[in-house]
């Protein structure tokens, strides 16, 4: 059986989650690998959530927020950028490939862009293979 990556997606309520919704309503075909968790703002995503997902066996973590300047809470996504920059340094030291944790801006009217992000990320991680941190047979959906 081919490797199907498990990706945890943290999506902001106002833009990205609505974008993902739009993709669904528009019946766009999308890789089924992202398990979505809705957040009020990408700025509310603690680095711990990302590490926790990796700890629990996720092969990748996708973070989506509003475009810069469009944040519902004005500057939440600027905080996300700062946090992610630092977290990426830490993850790099831990030997986790940069592609496994990705940050993208997806607006509410960009269903097609969301599909594109998910498909590209799934392909990236398929190429990388399962996460080295992975635990055996723990199902994330459970």
């Amino acid at each position: 059986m081919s490797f199907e990556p498990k990706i945890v997606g943290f999506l902001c309520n106002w833009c990205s989650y609505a974008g993902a919704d739009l993709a669904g309503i528009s019946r766009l075909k999308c890789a089924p690998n992202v398990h979505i968790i809705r957040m009020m703002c990408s700025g509310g995503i603690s680095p711990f959530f990302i590490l926790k997902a990796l700890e629990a066996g996720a092969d990748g973590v996708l973070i989506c927020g509003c475009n810069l300047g469009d944040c519902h809470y004005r500057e939440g996504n600027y905080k996300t950028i700062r946090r992610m920059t630092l977290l990426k340094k830490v993850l790099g030291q831990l030997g986790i490939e940069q592609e496994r944790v990705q940050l993208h801006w997806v607006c509410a009217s960009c269903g097609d862009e969301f599909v594109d992000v998910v498909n590209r990320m799934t392909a990236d991680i398929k190429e990388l293979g399962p996460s080295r941190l992975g635990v055996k047979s723990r199902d994330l959906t459970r």
Partner: protein
Amino acid sequence: MNLEDIINKTKTYYCLECGKCTAVCPVSRHNSNFSPRLMLERALMDSEGELIHDRELFSCLTCYACSHLCPSEVDYPVFTQKVRSLASSQGEHGDCAHSGTLLSLMRLMSRPNIKQRRLDWLDGCHTSEKSEILYFVGCAPYFEPIFEDIEVSPVNVARNSIRILNALGIEPMLLPNERCCGHDLLWTGDVETFKKLAQFNAEMIKESGAKKIVFSCPEGYRTFKIDYPQYVKLDCEPVHITELLAQNLSKLSLRPRAKREGSNPEVKKVTYQDPCRLGRHLGIYEPPRELIKAIPGIKLVEMEHSGDESICCGTSVWTNCSSCSKEIRIERLSEAKATGAELMITACPKCQIHFKCAMVDKGAEKGADVKMEVMDLVNLVANAMETQE
């Protein structure tokens, strides 16, 4: 281990209820809900349940101020450590500082297949592939990005440690896939993960063939010296860099900084904060002081509480950091200020992080009362040595 075993092991039943522990406890002074004496009483009188689910169980700093004074020699920090492991097996844990990011990283380091890239900062340091002396870097490379904003550079301490060792003619070996020593996990009660980390490290060290491990971090040192032998077999001798340097003072040729800059050498007053792990845990008070005194152009002045009476920096193992922790730090910083010193020297990266954090956080409110330069002893020595190059 159940509560009865813990009580037997730590001789809790000898408690006289004299209350010296609570009187000296830095946490109790600011948080009236926490009292080591009451904790012990509860362990002896009540059922396990109440103690394990007590929120204050994770407030203890395990700084050994209490047991140091205890007339019955009750080992309260080890009692806390063991009760925490009981509590954590029942799903209890403290409030993690930094939302648990740091402890999560430590757990991730216990995964067998990781391939870390943790030695990218080695520029200007001479290391060797094979040496009898190993330098244990510790968490410095992980702390570096996380504490960038409060201007603490633990990696700089690691770099300077290696440079000083180089000056002594030692080219240490480093482990490219070194794991966390597990100190923080052991003291938060996660013994299982601690054991895994200990086994990985012991195996790697055995393969490397090292005879001596040098630490610049007191926590790692304590863990290797006291805790590892209880779980794994280690065939080498752990040593703290201050001990090693104090033995080799004559080879260091230290010079004052002012001389190099051509100005009149002024005597700079400094004070020394004993890290609890180095001080009360391991009894190393003198080597760091000898080192400081050996540096010309500076004068060591002691704080009101120093040596075995010194006060902890307010948080340990990234757990239960609260307003109480900040108050402990502010109090300690004002003690340091009262000595008239310009600089506070410490030998633990976490002390430095915690004091800097308090200054950033309370700086606006307290202003100059708490502003003070904090520096690692290794950096101080490295600065004094640079002249000879």
